[in-house]
């Protein structure tokens, strides 16, 4: 199998362009592509539409890209931990589209799976339903929701091989597997890049077919938002 390994995030994102739509994996700060976010910051790409469940915190994750005004629009389910975000939103500098978390996850999966639209009950009767087709099945109402795809899907995995096969760890899996399937170009950063044949084929979470570029990430900070311990 051909190798999809690139040297690092700069090479992986060399053709990221202004006004691109970018999916970023992660839930809160868990499982986010730290190396790629740093590279986008350095590259200075502007006008990004970011599809990500959350928007990071003020000084980490996507929050870093908000601070530098590289993000034009956020498509998320929850954006509550970020003061700069709030400021830009209230001042009208930032567009935000809020989507129920399960609908977001399924719309991304649908994007990767070639399903342009599907029915879901989430949001029926709420403002989320505005302008959407409502249809009843078996006595229950559902909304028609469409797929989401992106120019770039940027994801983080625990281990990956040179063919792009990926394994995630713990709850750092979250949105990463679906986003991997929905990018025209999918870039995966991994904590451990392993040789072909190292991963058990039965235990691969994301088959390499979805991944165009992969690199060994560095210096993972893995910041914790709510360190909660028991005695």
């Amino acid at each position, binding site marked *: 199998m051909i190798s999809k390994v690139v040297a690092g995030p700069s090479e992986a994102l060399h053709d990221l362009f202004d006004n691109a739509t970018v999916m970023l994996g992660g839930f809160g700060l868990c499982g986010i592509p730290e190396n790629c976010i740093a590279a986008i910051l350095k590259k200075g790409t502007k006008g990004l539409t970011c599809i990500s469940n959350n928007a990071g915190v003020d000084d980490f994750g996507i929050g870093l890209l908000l601070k530098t005004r590289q993000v034009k629009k956020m498509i998320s*389910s929850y954006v509550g*931990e970020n003061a700069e975000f709030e400021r830009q939103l209230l001042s009208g500098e930032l567009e935000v589209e809020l989507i129920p*978390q*399960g609908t977001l*996850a399924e719309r991304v999966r649908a994007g990767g799976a070639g399903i342009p639209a599907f029915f879901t009950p989430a*949001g029926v009767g*709420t403002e989320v339903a505005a302008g959407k087709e409502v249809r009843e099945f078996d006595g229950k109402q559902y909304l028609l929701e469409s797929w989401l795809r992106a120019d770039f899907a940027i994801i983080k995995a625990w281990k990956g091989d040179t063919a792009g096969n990926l394994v995630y760890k*713990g709850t*750092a899996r979250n949105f990463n597997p679906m986003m991997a399937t929905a990018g025209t170009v999918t870039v995966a950063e991994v904590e451990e890049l392993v040789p072909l044949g190292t991963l058990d084929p039965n235990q691969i979470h994301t088959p390499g077919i979805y991944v165009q570029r992969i690199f060994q990430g560095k210096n993972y900070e893995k910041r914790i*938002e709510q360190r909660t311990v028991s005695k």
Partner: protein
Amino acid sequence: MLDKIGIAKRIAKEVKDGMYINLGIGIPTLVANYIPAHIQVVLQSENGLLGIGPFPKENEVDPDLINAGKQTITMMPGSALFSSAESFAMIRGGHVDLTILGAMEVSETGDIANWKVPGKMVKGMGGAMDLVASAKHIIVAMQHCSKDGASKLLKKCTLPITGIKCVKRIVSDLAVLDILPTGGFKLLERAPGISVEQIKNATEGRLVIEGNIPEMQL
């Protein structure tokens, strides 16, 4: 009048052996502390885990293992990890037996409002709309009235709603109530020391009172 822990304790009594449960942030999270030891349940974290364990010891903290409230957690023997799409497939498909979540308002037809307050920063609905639209059974943990005494159990929600006709049961600081299929709050239990009259005064929506209303046992 129940405090938060009282509400959590009362809700814990609704939990049955073998249930798969999703607990929202706030009071619902506290419920886990009061489930009797002989009752075995599996807690779902919608960011991709079945089988939430206790919070970790300092030396067990793993940044790759958090709950939906972004708190560090541990797993139980028998836990399973999965993606967000799988997690909400589980929720949407009706596989989670019980959802417990907070509310700012509930209407007498079971509508719930808990995600947005006009004029305040909108943080997003997270997984709440999926949970309320899909859960087989929803129990709401809430304050019966706002700080200025206005009822939160209403004929119709005034805040933007999260889901329609979904709430089945409410445990408030004053009472336990069911939403009747035909509409209305059916009073089941009074909080310790609270009179039916006090609950009447605190409930704007249609309150249905039949027979003697017992005081809750905690």
